[in-house]
């Protein structure tokens, strides 16, 4: 017997009504019953559909990053497997977490999370899954130092695969600020009153406190004089034109010369340079290094997700995505030939040891998350 979908069923019913085979009351009654039946079965349909995965949801940072994923990973994956990848975007890990919290298990599947601290938070909230690493053979190409911190948090197992890394360094317009000046002043260039109203900064509280620690000569992973940090954040705020909230806004502010200096994401700044803008980029000593991962959320169709992760970690896909989004891939340069462009990207480490980058300590940052995010909300508004 041929399977009939709801639309066909409704059209047949409508035809009977139009032909006079069905009175109006009967027609409306049947439509109502069909609606009721669909409404009742919908919450359970997800579980039935889980057996036969037709799509996987992926959420990431949007802009050039999403474009690279779509072009080099999702479309080829769909072509190969028939599984559609629905991609959404977010402005930050906090924003995404609030969506996941409001959603149903299984509604969101894979997220391009930034930082080990996000992995720890999501795991702490019980949103983690357990990957079957046997289904992801391409994990062997990943830099071991990028995998270790995740295993430590989730007792030896993994809920994600590392995918890329980068830095949040100083980005400046060379027309107004020289490389030498940035080298000399370091993170303190963001507090230079000569550039008042031509300075910007990310609204993210972690980045603000990281840079405040650098500006007050403290260890960003263990600042002892927190009040001095907040004073630096306030000083920066008073010189600021705007807190940017997305990569697109960062690029727009720099490209339109609304601002001359800000801290920025290495890949986005490289994208601006590729577009021909004379924007300099420098990581100050102890600059903010981060690693990103593809995190699989609890309740997701695991095998389909693992297949997508393995596909995305394949050297040809990973290199193409990295060249598109301008962040070095998590692949070990000692094991995989990364081509010509990747070694020129900011933050790239040819040794694969990443000893030159300072990453955020998840315990330290998550321990201050509640207090500092709230304080930042006030300081940002002039308090």
């Amino acid at each position, binding site marked *: 017997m041929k399977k009939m979908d709801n639309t066909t069923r409704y059209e047949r019913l409508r035809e009977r009504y139009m032909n006079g085979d069905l009175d109006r009351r009967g027609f409306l009654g049947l439509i109502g019953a069909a609606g009721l039946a669909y409404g009742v079965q919908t919450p359970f349909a997800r579980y039935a559909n889980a057996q036969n995965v037709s799509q996987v949801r992926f959420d990431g940072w949007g802009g050039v990053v999403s474009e690279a994923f779509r072009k080099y990973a999702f479309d080829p994956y769909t072509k190969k497997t028939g599984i559609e990848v629905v991609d959404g975007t977010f402005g*930050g890990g*906090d*924003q995404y*977490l*609030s969506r996941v*919290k409001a959603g149903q298990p299984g509604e969101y599947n894979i997220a391009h999370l930034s930082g080990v601290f996000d992995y720890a*938070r999501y795991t*702490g*909230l019980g949103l983690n899954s357990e990957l079957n690493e046997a289904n992801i053979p391409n994990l062997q190409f990943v830099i071991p130092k990028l995998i270790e911190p995740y295993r430590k948090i989730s007792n030896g197992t993994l809920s994600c695969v590392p995918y890329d890394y980068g830095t949040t360094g100083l980005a400046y317009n060379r027309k107004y600020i020289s490389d030498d000046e940035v080298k000399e002043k370091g993170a303190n260039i963001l507090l230079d009153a000569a550039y008042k*109203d031509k300075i910007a900064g990310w609204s993210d509280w972690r980045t603000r406190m990281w840079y405040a620690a650098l500006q007050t000569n403290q260890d960003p992973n263990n600042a002892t004089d927190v009040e001095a940090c907040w004073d630096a954040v306030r000083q920066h*705020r008073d010189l*600021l*034109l*705007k*807190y940017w*909230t997305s990569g697109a806004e960062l690029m*727009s502010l720099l490209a*339109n*010369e*609304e601002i001359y200096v800000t801290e920025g994401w290495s890949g986005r700044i490289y994208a601006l340079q590729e577009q021909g803008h004379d924007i300099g980029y420098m990581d100050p000593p102890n600059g903010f290094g981060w690693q990103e991962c593809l995190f699989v959320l609890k309740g997701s169709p695991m095998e389909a997700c693992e297949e997508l992760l393995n596909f995305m970690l394949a050297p040809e896909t990973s290199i193409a995505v990295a060249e598109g989004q301008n962040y070095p891939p998590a692949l070990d340069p000692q094991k995989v030939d990364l081509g010509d462009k990747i070694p020129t990207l900011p933050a790239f480490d040819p040794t694969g040891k990443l000893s030159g980058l300072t990453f955020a300590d998840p315990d330290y940052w998550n*321990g201050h*998350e*509640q207090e500092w*995010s*709230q304080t930042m*909300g*006030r300081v*940002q*508004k*002039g*308090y």
Partner: protein
Amino acid sequence: MSVEAREARQPWILLSPALSAVGLLLFVPLGFILVYSFWLRTASGADQVGFYLDNWRAALSDPFYRDILLNTLKIAAITTGICALMGYPAAYFIARARGNKAILLLLLMLPFWISYIIRTMSWINILGVSGALNSAMLWLGIVDTPVQMLYNEPSVILGLVHFLLPFMILNVFVSLEGIDTNLEAAANSLGATRWQSFVQVTLPLSLPGLAAGGLLCFVLGAGTYITPMVLGGPSNAMFANLVYEAIITQLNWPLGSALSLMLLAVLGALVLIYNRYLGMAQLMKGLG
């Protein structure tokens, strides 16, 4: 069942779909928000279920929230005033136009075909350092260096006026359309100048429309967070931005719930005052 009893039930039966929709889509979510406002956010980001007054105590006693609420009301009031000053002449022109009013009204509705966020962001290309206005002023030699016109309170108010002006014009237009033009003619025939007939006849009769437009502009303006986020600077946050931050950035849904209910209470009180003195009928006409 008696005829009277059946007749008494009929309106409720007919209203039941609408009442169910309002109940499910408005009152049930509001109930959830109310319950949430008494919970607590723990350090791990999880919510602690219970009955705690901490969020309400913070929302009602912390000067930070009070100051931003007052600033929000100030910005909404200025925006409403500008919308009234700009919207009334436009509405008057449309109402008294001899040509095809439908085309003028269609032009008024045109901006609604474009996303509100895109309309707000369009100001960046107009007022930005390398935007159209600065480029024109530099080209004409009016200024030597670009003028910083964005990311301050005036740019937020400008964005809000751009968003809300059609609501004001529509409400005033509906009110002016309902006024018999013979009244102005009668006033003129009794010796009043055109200005006097406008001030003493037309304006008072159109005040309910002006008030309805004012209420809409004020409530919508005070509840927005996109405009200050896109066009505002560090110190131009409005109250809805605090709700957004509490819920989205800080994951503090309980505090965000308390703040959103606080804003709802303030704006709800304004609507109640309006309803007490002017009634909602005029507002419905404008929205219709």
